[in-house]
Protein backbone atom coordinates (compact mmCIF):
# COMPACT_ATOMS: atom_id res chain seq x y z
CA UNK A 1 0.00 0.00 0.00
CA UNK A 2 1.78 3.14 -1.14
CA UNK A 3 -1.06 5.51 -1.91
CA UNK A 4 -1.87 8.90 -0.52
CA UNK A 5 -4.67 8.95 2.03
CA UNK A 6 -6.10 11.47 4.46
CA UNK A 7 -5.48 10.55 8.09
CA UNK A 8 -5.77 11.87 11.58
CA UNK A 9 -2.55 11.90 13.56
CA UNK A 10 -4.00 9.34 15.95
CA UNK A 11 -4.96 7.05 13.08
CA UNK A 12 -1.48 7.37 11.61
CA UNK A 13 0.02 6.36 14.97
CA UNK A 14 -2.03 3.17 14.83
CA UNK A 15 -1.61 2.40 11.13
CA UNK A 16 2.16 2.98 11.30
CA UNK A 17 2.43 0.53 14.17
CA UNK A 18 0.47 -2.07 12.17
CA UNK A 19 2.70 -1.50 9.13
CA UNK A 20 5.72 -1.98 11.41
CA UNK A 21 4.41 -5.41 12.37
CA UNK A 22 2.85 -4.44 15.69
CA UNK A 23 -0.46 -6.29 15.83
CA UNK A 24 -0.78 -6.36 19.62
CA UNK A 25 -2.29 -3.28 21.23
CA UNK A 26 -3.24 -2.80 24.85
CA UNK A 27 -4.98 0.42 25.71
CA UNK A 28 -7.57 2.38 27.52
CA UNK A 29 -9.55 5.30 26.09
CA UNK A 30 -8.76 8.90 26.95
CA UNK A 31 -9.21 12.12 24.97
CA UNK A 32 -7.39 13.22 22.85
CA UNK A 33 -5.83 9.85 21.90
CA UNK A 34 -8.92 7.64 21.77
CA UNK A 35 -8.77 7.33 17.97
CA UNK A 36 -5.56 5.30 18.33
CA UNK A 37 -7.48 2.65 20.24
CA UNK A 38 -10.62 3.03 18.10
CA UNK A 39 -8.61 2.51 14.91
CA UNK A 40 -6.78 -0.49 16.36
CA UNK A 41 -10.08 -2.00 17.48
CA UNK A 42 -11.35 -1.83 13.90
CA UNK A 43 -8.18 -2.96 12.11
CA UNK A 44 -6.54 -5.58 14.34
CA UNK A 45 -9.29 -8.23 14.51
CA UNK A 46 -9.34 -8.30 10.69
CA UNK A 47 -5.63 -9.09 10.41
CA UNK A 48 -5.30 -11.65 13.19
CA UNK A 49 -4.04 -9.19 15.78
CA UNK A 50 -5.02 -8.54 19.36
CA UNK A 51 -6.81 -5.38 20.39
CA UNK A 52 -7.36 -5.40 24.11
CA UNK A 53 -9.03 -2.66 26.08
CA UNK A 54 -7.68 -3.26 29.56
CA UNK A 55 -9.39 -2.54 32.86
CA UNK A 56 -6.95 0.28 33.55
CA UNK A 57 -3.94 2.07 32.12
CA UNK A 58 -1.61 0.23 34.49
CA UNK A 59 -3.02 -3.12 33.41
CA UNK A 60 -2.54 -2.16 29.76
CA UNK A 61 1.09 -1.24 30.28
CA UNK A 62 1.76 -4.45 32.22
CA UNK A 63 0.22 -6.37 29.31
CA UNK A 64 2.62 -4.48 27.07
CA UNK A 65 5.54 -5.55 29.28
CA UNK A 66 4.42 -9.17 29.01
CA UNK A 67 3.86 -9.08 25.25
CA UNK A 68 7.14 -7.31 24.55
CA UNK A 69 9.01 -9.72 26.85
CA UNK A 70 7.94 -12.52 24.51
CA UNK A 71 9.74 -10.70 21.70
CA UNK A 72 6.82 -9.39 19.66
CA UNK A 73 6.27 -5.80 18.66
CA UNK A 74 3.58 -4.30 20.85
CA UNK A 75 2.36 -0.89 21.91
CA UNK A 76 0.12 1.06 24.24
CA UNK A 77 -1.10 4.62 23.99
CA UNK A 78 -2.67 7.18 26.24
CA UNK A 79 -2.79 10.85 27.05
CA UNK A 80 -1.12 12.64 29.94
CA UNK A 81 -3.07 11.50 33.04
CA UNK A 82 -3.16 7.98 31.62
CA UNK A 83 0.60 7.99 31.03
CA UNK A 84 1.14 8.83 34.71
CA UNK A 85 -0.77 5.65 35.52
CA UNK A 86 1.34 3.61 33.12
CA UNK A 87 4.71 4.66 34.48
CA UNK A 88 5.16 1.80 36.95
CA UNK A 89 5.22 -0.76 34.16
CA UNK A 90 7.35 1.50 31.94
CA UNK A 91 10.00 1.52 34.66
CA UNK A 92 9.76 -2.30 34.80
CA UNK A 93 10.22 -2.45 31.02
CA UNK A 94 13.33 -0.29 31.27
CA UNK A 95 14.61 -2.40 34.17
CA UNK A 96 13.95 -5.58 32.18
CA UNK A 97 15.58 -4.25 28.98
CA UNK A 98 12.37 -4.79 27.03
CA UNK A 99 11.73 -2.76 23.86
CA UNK A 100 8.16 -1.51 23.44
CA UNK A 101 6.32 1.53 22.16
CA UNK A 102 4.39 3.92 24.37
CA UNK A 103 2.45 6.79 22.79
CA UNK A 104 1.55 9.95 24.68
CA UNK A 105 -0.85 12.35 22.93
CA UNK A 106 -0.42 15.12 25.48
CA UNK A 107 -3.22 17.19 26.98
CA UNK A 108 -3.23 19.95 29.57
CA UNK A 109 -2.25 19.15 33.15
CA UNK A 110 -1.50 18.73 35.99
CA UNK A 111 -4.14 16.42 37.45
CA UNK A 112 -7.02 15.60 35.18
CA UNK A 113 -6.24 18.94 33.57
CA UNK A 114 -8.05 19.48 30.29
CA UNK A 115 -8.45 17.86 26.90
CA UNK A 116 -6.80 20.48 24.73
CA UNK A 117 -3.22 20.08 23.43
CA UNK A 118 -0.19 20.56 25.63
CA UNK A 119 3.53 19.82 25.86
CA UNK A 120 3.71 19.85 29.62
CA UNK A 121 4.82 16.20 29.89
CA UNK A 122 8.29 16.94 28.53
CA UNK A 123 9.93 16.55 31.92
CA UNK A 124 8.03 13.34 32.55
CA UNK A 125 9.06 11.87 29.20
CA UNK A 126 12.70 12.91 29.26
CA UNK A 127 13.52 12.87 32.99
CA UNK A 128 11.32 10.44 34.89
CA UNK A 129 8.89 8.19 33.08
CA UNK A 130 8.82 6.10 36.24
CA UNK A 131 11.08 5.40 39.20
CA UNK A 132 14.74 4.48 39.08
CA UNK A 133 17.78 5.25 36.93
CA UNK A 134 16.65 4.98 33.32
CA UNK A 135 15.82 6.74 30.08
CA UNK A 136 13.46 5.97 27.24
CA UNK A 137 13.90 7.05 23.63
CA UNK A 138 11.56 9.98 22.98
CA UNK A 139 10.51 10.95 19.45
CA UNK A 140 8.51 14.10 18.67
CA UNK A 141 6.78 14.15 15.27
CA UNK A 142 5.51 17.43 13.83
CA UNK A 143 3.37 16.21 10.92
CA UNK A 144 1.05 13.27 10.36
CA UNK A 145 3.50 11.92 7.76
CA UNK A 146 6.36 12.17 10.23
CA UNK A 147 4.28 10.23 12.75
CA UNK A 148 4.47 7.25 10.38
CA UNK A 149 8.24 7.59 9.94
CA UNK A 150 8.97 8.00 13.63
CA UNK A 151 6.79 5.07 14.69
CA UNK A 152 8.90 2.88 12.37
CA UNK A 153 12.09 4.35 13.73
CA UNK A 154 10.95 4.06 17.34
CA UNK A 155 10.26 0.32 17.02
CA UNK A 156 13.56 -0.23 15.24
CA UNK A 157 15.73 1.70 17.70
CA UNK A 158 13.91 0.37 20.74
CA UNK A 159 14.80 -3.15 19.59
CA UNK A 160 18.34 -2.25 18.63
CA UNK A 161 19.13 -0.85 22.09
CA UNK A 162 16.60 -2.89 24.07
CA UNK A 163 14.96 0.16 25.61
CA UNK A 164 11.35 1.35 25.67
CA UNK A 165 10.52 4.14 23.22
CA UNK A 166 7.94 6.88 23.42
CA UNK A 167 6.22 8.93 20.74
CA UNK A 168 5.49 12.26 22.41
CA UNK A 169 2.70 13.89 20.41
CA UNK A 170 0.05 16.38 21.45
CA UNK A 171 -3.68 16.76 21.05
CA UNK A 172 -3.37 19.05 18.04
CA UNK A 173 -1.20 16.59 16.15
CA UNK A 174 -3.32 13.64 17.21
CA UNK A 175 -6.56 15.23 16.07
CA UNK A 176 -5.53 17.05 12.91
CA UNK A 177 -5.93 15.51 9.47
CA UNK A 178 -3.26 15.55 6.82
CA UNK A 179 -2.50 13.61 3.68
CA UNK A 180 0.01 10.81 4.20
CA UNK A 181 1.70 8.25 2.01
CA UNK A 182 1.71 4.86 3.65
CA UNK A 183 4.91 3.05 2.77
CA UNK A 184 6.27 -0.14 4.23
CA UNK A 185 9.07 0.32 6.77
CA UNK A 186 12.61 -0.10 5.42
CA UNK A 187 13.77 -2.27 8.31
CA UNK A 188 12.57 -5.62 9.67
CA UNK A 189 12.15 -6.51 13.33
CA UNK A 190 15.44 -7.43 15.05
CA UNK A 191 16.34 -10.94 16.18
CA UNK A 192 15.51 -11.34 19.87
CA UNK A 193 17.51 -14.28 21.33
CA UNK A 194 16.77 -12.87 24.81
CA UNK A 195 12.97 -13.14 24.49
CA UNK A 196 10.87 -15.36 26.75
CA UNK A 197 9.22 -16.99 23.77
CA UNK A 198 9.49 -20.67 24.72
CA UNK A 199 12.79 -22.59 24.79
CA UNK A 200 11.34 -25.85 23.37
CA UNK A 201 14.17 -27.76 25.08
CA UNK A 202 16.62 -26.29 22.57
CA UNK A 203 18.22 -23.61 24.74
CA UNK A 204 18.37 -22.41 28.31
CA UNK A 205 15.24 -20.63 29.38
CA UNK A 206 15.24 -16.83 29.22
CA UNK A 207 14.14 -14.78 32.21
CA UNK A 208 12.73 -11.26 31.86
CA UNK A 209 13.08 -9.60 35.22
CA UNK A 210 13.83 -6.26 36.85
CA UNK A 211 14.39 -7.51 40.41
CA UNK A 212 18.00 -7.76 41.62
CA UNK A 213 18.36 -8.14 45.37
CA UNK A 214 22.15 -7.92 45.39
CA UNK A 215 23.06 -4.22 45.28
CA UNK A 216 26.26 -4.77 43.25
CA UNK A 217 24.46 -6.85 40.68
CA UNK A 218 21.77 -4.19 40.24
CA UNK A 219 24.42 -1.49 40.03
CA UNK A 220 26.22 -3.42 37.31
CA UNK A 221 22.99 -3.81 35.35
CA UNK A 222 22.27 -0.09 35.56
CA UNK A 223 25.86 0.82 34.62
CA UNK A 224 25.68 -1.45 31.57
CA UNK A 225 22.43 0.25 30.58
CA UNK A 226 23.98 3.70 30.94
CA UNK A 227 26.80 2.66 28.62
CA UNK A 228 24.10 1.94 26.03
CA UNK A 229 22.59 5.36 26.75
CA UNK A 230 25.95 6.97 25.94
CA UNK A 231 25.96 5.25 22.53
CA UNK A 232 22.37 6.39 21.99
CA UNK A 233 23.31 9.99 22.87
CA UNK A 234 26.16 9.83 20.40
CA UNK A 235 24.29 8.20 17.52
CA UNK A 236 20.59 8.97 17.79
CA UNK A 237 20.24 12.74 18.16
CA UNK A 238 17.93 14.12 15.51
CA UNK A 239 16.84 17.66 14.67
CA UNK A 240 15.61 19.69 11.74
CA UNK A 241 17.17 23.06 10.99
CA UNK A 242 14.91 25.60 9.28
CA UNK A 243 16.31 28.89 7.89
CA UNK A 244 19.26 28.60 10.27
CA UNK A 245 22.11 29.38 7.77
CA UNK A 246 22.26 33.08 8.63
CA UNK A 247 19.92 33.14 11.64
CA UNK A 248 20.60 35.56 14.47
CA UNK A 249 17.73 34.31 16.62
CA UNK A 250 17.28 30.55 16.95
CA UNK A 251 13.76 29.57 17.93
CA UNK A 252 13.64 26.04 19.34
CA UNK A 253 10.31 24.20 19.21
CA UNK A 254 9.10 20.64 18.75
CA UNK A 255 5.88 18.93 17.67
CA UNK A 256 2.85 20.97 16.60
CA UNK A 257 4.40 24.08 18.17
CA UNK A 258 7.25 23.97 15.65
CA UNK A 259 4.74 24.54 12.85
CA UNK A 260 3.44 27.67 14.54
CA UNK A 261 7.04 28.76 15.10
CA UNK A 262 7.98 28.20 11.45
CA UNK A 263 5.08 30.43 10.37
CA UNK A 264 6.30 33.11 12.82
CA UNK A 265 9.95 32.75 11.74
CA UNK A 266 9.02 33.23 8.10
CA UNK A 267 7.01 36.34 8.93
CA UNK A 268 9.86 37.72 11.11
CA UNK A 269 12.22 37.41 8.13
CA UNK A 270 9.74 39.34 5.99
CA UNK A 271 9.89 42.04 8.65
CA UNK A 272 13.70 42.08 8.56
CA UNK A 273 14.62 39.92 11.56
CA UNK A 274 16.87 36.97 10.76
CA UNK A 275 15.18 34.22 12.69
CA UNK A 276 15.49 30.46 12.22
CA UNK A 277 14.06 27.37 13.82
CA UNK A 278 15.71 24.31 15.33
CA UNK A 279 13.18 21.51 15.70
CA UNK A 280 14.25 18.64 17.95
CA UNK A 281 12.95 15.36 16.51
CA UNK A 282 14.40 13.31 19.35
CA UNK A 283 13.78 14.75 22.81
CA UNK A 284 15.84 12.05 24.43
CA UNK A 285 18.54 11.95 23.34
CA UNK A 286 18.27 15.72 23.09
CA UNK A 287 19.92 17.16 19.95
CA UNK A 288 22.48 19.01 22.04
CA UNK A 289 25.04 18.97 19.21
CA UNK A 290 22.72 20.83 16.82
CA UNK A 291 21.99 23.52 19.41
CA UNK A 292 25.66 23.85 20.40
CA UNK A 293 26.67 24.31 16.75
CA UNK A 294 24.95 27.71 16.70
CA UNK A 295 26.15 29.30 19.96
CA UNK A 296 28.78 31.33 18.10
CA UNK A 297 26.37 32.37 15.34
CA UNK A 298 23.16 33.48 17.03
CA UNK A 299 22.70 36.24 19.56
CA UNK A 300 20.07 34.35 21.51
CA UNK A 301 17.89 31.24 21.63
CA UNK A 302 14.13 31.25 22.22
CA UNK A 303 12.35 28.10 23.35
CA UNK A 304 8.64 28.08 22.47
CA UNK A 305 6.50 25.41 24.10
CA UNK A 306 2.96 24.58 25.13
CA UNK A 307 4.13 24.48 28.75
CA UNK A 308 5.49 26.80 31.44
CA UNK A 309 9.04 26.09 30.25
CA UNK A 310 10.41 22.57 30.31
CA UNK A 311 12.45 21.89 27.16
CA UNK A 312 14.06 25.31 27.70
CA UNK A 313 16.21 23.65 30.38
CA UNK A 314 17.72 21.32 27.78
CA UNK A 315 18.37 24.30 25.52
CA UNK A 316 20.16 26.01 28.44
CA UNK A 317 22.23 22.88 29.10
CA UNK A 318 23.27 22.73 25.45
CA UNK A 319 24.00 26.47 25.21
CA UNK A 320 25.88 26.31 28.52
CA UNK A 321 25.74 30.02 29.23
CA UNK A 322 27.28 31.11 25.91
CA UNK A 323 24.33 33.32 24.90
CA UNK A 324 20.98 34.21 26.51
CA UNK A 325 18.17 31.62 26.34
CA UNK A 326 14.65 33.05 26.39
CA UNK A 327 11.30 31.35 26.76
CA UNK A 328 7.78 31.85 25.46
CA UNK A 329 4.94 29.48 26.23
CA UNK A 330 1.22 28.99 26.64
CA UNK A 331 -0.17 26.24 28.78
CA UNK A 332 -3.30 24.51 30.02
CA UNK A 333 -4.40 23.64 26.49
CA UNK A 334 -3.94 27.09 24.98
CA UNK A 335 -2.18 26.93 21.60
CA UNK A 336 0.15 29.87 20.95
CA UNK A 337 -0.75 31.80 17.82
CA UNK A 338 1.87 32.65 15.20
CA UNK A 339 1.34 36.36 15.98
CA UNK A 340 2.28 35.93 19.64
CA UNK A 341 5.49 34.08 18.74
CA UNK A 342 6.26 36.69 16.10
CA UNK A 343 5.88 39.47 18.67
CA UNK A 344 8.38 37.72 20.95
CA UNK A 345 10.85 37.22 18.08
CA UNK A 346 10.52 40.88 17.05
CA UNK A 347 11.07 41.97 20.66
CA UNK A 348 14.32 39.95 20.79
CA UNK A 349 15.32 41.14 17.32
CA UNK A 350 15.33 44.81 18.24
Amino acid at each position, binding site marked *: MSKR*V*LMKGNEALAEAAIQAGCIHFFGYPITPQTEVAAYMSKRLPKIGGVYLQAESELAASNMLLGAAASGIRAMTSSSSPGISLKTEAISYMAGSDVPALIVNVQRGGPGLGGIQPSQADYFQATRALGHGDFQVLVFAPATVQEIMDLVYLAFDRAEEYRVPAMILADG*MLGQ*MMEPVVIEKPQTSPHEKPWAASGHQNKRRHNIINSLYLQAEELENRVIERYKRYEIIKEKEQRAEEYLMEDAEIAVVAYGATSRIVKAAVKEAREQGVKAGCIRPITLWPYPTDTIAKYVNQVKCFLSVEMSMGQMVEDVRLAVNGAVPVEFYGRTG*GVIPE*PGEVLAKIMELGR
Partner: protein
Amino acid sequence: MEEKNIIIICGHYGSGKTNFSINLALSERRMYEKVLLIDMDIVNPYFRSSDYSSALTEKGIDIISPIYAGSTLDIPALSPKIDAALSGGYQKIIIDAGGDDAGATALGTFSSRISGVGYNMLYVANMYRPLADTPEKAAQILKEIEAAARLKVTGIVNNSHLGEYTDIDTINSSVNYIDKLSELTGLPVVYTAVKRQIADESRLDINGLFEIDIHVIPPWKE
Protein backbone atom coordinates in the same frame (compact mmCIF):
# COMPACT_ATOMS: atom_id res chain seq x y z
CA MET B 1 -34.32 15.33 -3.54
CA GLU B 2 -37.34 17.18 -2.21
CA GLU B 3 -36.59 20.29 -0.17
CA LYS B 4 -37.07 19.86 3.61
CA ASN B 5 -36.79 22.02 6.68
CA ILE B 6 -34.05 19.97 8.30
CA ILE B 7 -30.80 18.89 6.65
CA ILE B 8 -28.77 16.36 8.59
CA ILE B 9 -25.10 15.98 7.73
CA CYS B 10 -23.78 12.58 8.68
CA GLY B 11 -20.83 10.58 7.45
CA HIS B 12 -17.98 8.29 8.24
CA TYR B 13 -15.42 9.49 10.77
CA GLY B 14 -13.30 12.34 9.42
CA SER B 15 -15.22 12.62 6.14
CA GLY B 16 -15.43 16.40 6.41
CA LYS B 17 -18.93 16.80 7.82
CA THR B 18 -18.12 19.88 9.87
CA ASN B 19 -16.50 21.85 7.08
CA PHE B 20 -19.35 20.91 4.75
CA SER B 21 -21.99 21.83 7.37
CA ILE B 22 -20.47 25.28 7.86
CA ASN B 23 -20.44 25.88 4.11
CA LEU B 24 -23.99 24.61 3.74
CA ALA B 25 -25.22 26.84 6.58
CA LEU B 26 -23.57 29.88 4.98
CA SER B 27 -25.09 28.96 1.62
CA GLU B 28 -28.59 28.46 3.07
CA ARG B 29 -28.29 31.79 4.87
CA ARG B 30 -28.13 33.52 1.47
CA MET B 31 -31.64 32.20 0.78
CA TYR B 32 -33.24 32.15 4.23
CA GLU B 33 -33.44 34.60 7.08
CA LYS B 34 -33.67 32.13 9.97
CA VAL B 35 -30.92 29.51 9.70
CA LEU B 36 -29.70 27.35 12.56
CA LEU B 37 -26.68 25.04 12.78
CA ILE B 38 -26.89 22.37 15.45
CA ASP B 39 -23.52 20.89 16.43
CA MET B 40 -24.52 17.41 17.53
CA ASP B 41 -20.98 16.04 17.53
CA ILE B 42 -20.47 14.83 21.06
CA VAL B 43 -17.84 12.29 20.04
CA ASN B 44 -14.95 14.43 18.93
CA PRO B 45 -14.04 17.39 21.15
CA TYR B 46 -11.61 18.86 18.58
CA PHE B 47 -12.25 20.67 15.27
CA ARG B 48 -16.01 20.80 15.59
CA SER B 49 -18.41 23.37 14.23
CA SER B 50 -18.84 25.05 17.63
CA ASP B 51 -15.21 26.14 17.30
CA TYR B 52 -16.20 28.29 14.35
CA SER B 53 -19.32 29.82 15.90
CA SER B 54 -18.18 33.45 15.62
CA ALA B 55 -17.75 33.15 11.83
CA LEU B 56 -21.32 31.84 11.65
CA THR B 57 -22.99 34.22 14.09
CA GLU B 58 -21.40 37.15 12.23
CA LYS B 59 -23.38 36.05 9.18
CA GLY B 60 -26.58 35.84 11.19
CA ILE B 61 -26.62 32.07 11.60
CA ASP B 62 -27.68 30.75 14.99
CA ILE B 63 -25.75 27.88 16.47
CA ILE B 64 -26.52 25.37 19.19
CA SER B 65 -23.49 23.60 20.63
CA PRO B 66 -23.11 20.70 23.03
CA ILE B 67 -23.28 22.21 26.49
CA TYR B 68 -19.59 21.90 27.31
CA ALA B 69 -18.21 22.44 23.79
CA GLY B 70 -15.25 24.76 23.78
CA SER B 71 -14.58 24.13 27.43
CA THR B 72 -12.03 21.57 28.46
CA LEU B 73 -14.69 19.37 29.96
CA ASP B 74 -15.11 16.14 28.03
CA ILE B 75 -18.77 15.51 28.85
CA PRO B 76 -21.01 14.46 25.97
CA ALA B 77 -24.12 16.49 26.85
CA LEU B 78 -26.58 17.86 24.30
CA SER B 79 -28.29 21.20 24.79
CA PRO B 80 -32.00 21.28 25.73
CA LYS B 81 -32.28 24.11 23.19
CA ILE B 82 -32.32 21.50 20.42
CA ASP B 83 -35.80 20.37 21.41
CA ALA B 84 -37.12 23.92 21.36
CA ALA B 85 -35.52 24.64 17.99
CA LEU B 86 -37.10 21.58 16.41
CA SER B 87 -40.50 22.88 17.53
CA GLY B 88 -40.37 25.74 15.02
CA GLY B 89 -39.04 29.21 14.33
CA TYR B 90 -36.35 28.30 11.78
CA GLN B 91 -36.62 28.07 8.01
CA LYS B 92 -33.55 25.83 7.74
CA ILE B 93 -31.93 23.70 10.38
CA ILE B 94 -28.62 22.03 9.60
CA ILE B 95 -27.54 19.29 11.96
CA ASP B 96 -23.82 18.43 12.05
CA ALA B 97 -23.81 14.89 13.44
CA GLY B 98 -20.78 13.11 14.86
CA GLY B 99 -18.87 10.58 12.77
CA ASP B 100 -19.80 6.93 12.20
CA ASP B 101 -22.64 5.18 14.02
CA ALA B 102 -21.22 6.25 17.39
CA GLY B 103 -21.61 9.90 16.40
CA ALA B 104 -25.06 9.35 14.90
CA THR B 105 -26.42 7.79 18.10
CA ALA B 106 -27.27 11.24 19.48
CA LEU B 107 -29.52 11.78 16.44
CA GLY B 108 -31.56 8.74 17.41
CA THR B 109 -32.84 10.60 20.45
CA PHE B 110 -34.55 13.09 18.15
CA SER B 111 -35.52 10.75 15.32
CA SER B 112 -39.29 10.93 15.78
CA ARG B 113 -39.23 14.73 16.15
CA ILE B 114 -37.04 15.09 13.07
CA SER B 115 -39.22 12.73 11.04
CA GLY B 116 -42.26 14.76 12.08
CA VAL B 117 -40.75 18.02 10.80
CA GLY B 118 -39.39 16.46 7.59
CA TYR B 119 -35.73 16.05 6.78
CA ASN B 120 -33.05 15.25 4.29
CA MET B 121 -30.04 13.35 5.55
CA LEU B 122 -26.84 13.71 3.55
CA TYR B 123 -24.06 11.17 3.87
CA VAL B 124 -20.65 12.78 3.39
CA ALA B 125 -18.04 10.46 1.91
CA ASN B 126 -14.33 10.88 1.26
CA MET B 127 -12.69 8.00 -0.60
CA TYR B 128 -9.26 9.05 0.68
CA ARG B 129 -10.11 8.03 4.24
CA PRO B 130 -8.54 4.59 4.89
CA LEU B 131 -11.50 3.01 6.72
CA ALA B 132 -13.97 4.14 4.04
CA ASP B 133 -11.77 3.80 0.97
CA THR B 134 -14.01 1.40 -0.96
CA PRO B 135 -17.68 1.96 -1.90
CA GLU B 136 -18.50 -1.25 0.02
CA LYS B 137 -16.93 0.01 3.27
CA ALA B 138 -18.61 3.42 2.85
CA ALA B 139 -21.99 1.73 2.22
CA GLN B 140 -21.59 -0.46 5.30
CA ILE B 141 -20.89 2.58 7.51
CA LEU B 142 -23.91 4.33 5.97
CA LYS B 143 -26.12 1.43 7.02
CA GLU B 144 -24.70 1.48 10.55
CA ILE B 145 -25.37 5.23 10.78
CA GLU B 146 -28.98 4.78 9.65
CA ALA B 147 -29.50 2.12 12.32
CA ALA B 148 -28.01 4.27 15.09
CA ALA B 149 -29.82 7.44 13.98
CA ARG B 150 -33.11 5.67 13.31
CA LEU B 151 -33.32 7.90 10.23
CA LYS B 152 -32.76 7.24 6.53
CA VAL B 153 -30.05 8.79 4.40
CA THR B 154 -31.60 10.58 1.40
CA GLY B 155 -28.54 11.66 -0.54
CA ILE B 156 -24.77 11.44 -0.86
CA VAL B 157 -22.18 14.21 -0.78
CA ASN B 158 -18.91 13.47 -2.52
CA ASN B 159 -16.37 15.22 -0.31
CA SER B 160 -13.34 13.28 -1.55
CA HIS B 161 -10.22 15.33 -0.93
CA LEU B 162 -6.64 15.10 0.29
CA GLY B 163 -6.37 18.30 2.29
CA GLU B 164 -3.85 20.66 0.75
CA TYR B 165 -2.81 18.00 -1.80
CA THR B 166 -6.23 18.16 -3.41
CA ASP B 167 -6.26 18.98 -7.09
CA ILE B 168 -8.62 18.37 -9.96
CA ASP B 169 -7.33 14.79 -10.42
CA THR B 170 -8.10 14.05 -6.78
CA ILE B 171 -11.72 14.89 -7.46
CA ASN B 172 -11.96 13.26 -10.89
CA SER B 173 -10.50 10.03 -9.47
CA SER B 174 -13.33 9.85 -6.96
CA VAL B 175 -16.16 9.77 -9.51
CA ASN B 176 -16.18 5.97 -9.94
CA TYR B 177 -16.09 5.45 -6.18
CA ILE B 178 -19.00 7.76 -5.54
CA ASP B 179 -21.06 6.38 -8.46
CA LYS B 180 -20.55 2.87 -7.13
CA LEU B 181 -21.60 4.01 -3.65
CA SER B 182 -24.69 5.56 -5.20
CA GLU B 183 -25.43 2.31 -7.04
CA LEU B 184 -24.92 0.17 -3.92
CA THR B 185 -27.20 2.32 -1.80
CA GLY B 186 -29.71 3.46 -4.43
CA LEU B 187 -29.14 7.04 -3.28
CA PRO B 188 -28.49 10.07 -5.49
CA VAL B 189 -25.23 12.03 -5.38
CA VAL B 190 -26.62 15.41 -4.38
CA TYR B 191 -23.45 17.45 -4.11
CA THR B 192 -19.79 17.20 -5.04
CA ALA B 193 -17.93 19.49 -2.68
CA VAL B 194 -14.93 21.19 -4.29
CA LYS B 195 -12.68 23.88 -2.89
CA ARG B 196 -13.70 27.15 -4.52
CA GLN B 197 -10.22 27.84 -5.91
CA ILE B 198 -10.01 24.44 -7.62
CA ALA B 199 -13.52 24.71 -9.03
CA ASP B 200 -12.75 28.18 -10.44
CA GLU B 201 -9.36 27.27 -11.92
CA SER B 202 -10.49 24.08 -13.59
CA ARG B 203 -13.91 25.38 -14.64
CA LEU B 204 -15.35 22.17 -13.28
CA ASP B 205 -18.64 21.22 -14.83
CA ILE B 206 -20.30 18.52 -12.73
CA ASN B 207 -23.84 18.10 -11.57
CA GLY B 208 -24.37 19.26 -8.04
CA LEU B 209 -21.05 21.12 -7.84
CA PHE B 210 -20.91 22.75 -4.42
CA GLU B 211 -18.07 25.20 -3.98
CA ILE B 212 -16.68 25.25 -0.47
CA ASP B 213 -14.25 27.29 1.56
CA ILE B 214 -11.98 25.62 4.08
CA HIS B 215 -12.93 26.72 7.58
CA VAL B 216 -11.47 23.82 9.56
CA ILE B 217 -7.75 24.61 9.61
CA PRO B 218 -4.89 24.41 12.14
CA PRO B 219 -3.68 27.60 13.86
CA TRP B 220 -0.53 28.02 11.73
CA LYS B 221 -2.69 28.39 8.60
CA GLU B 222 -5.10 30.96 10.00
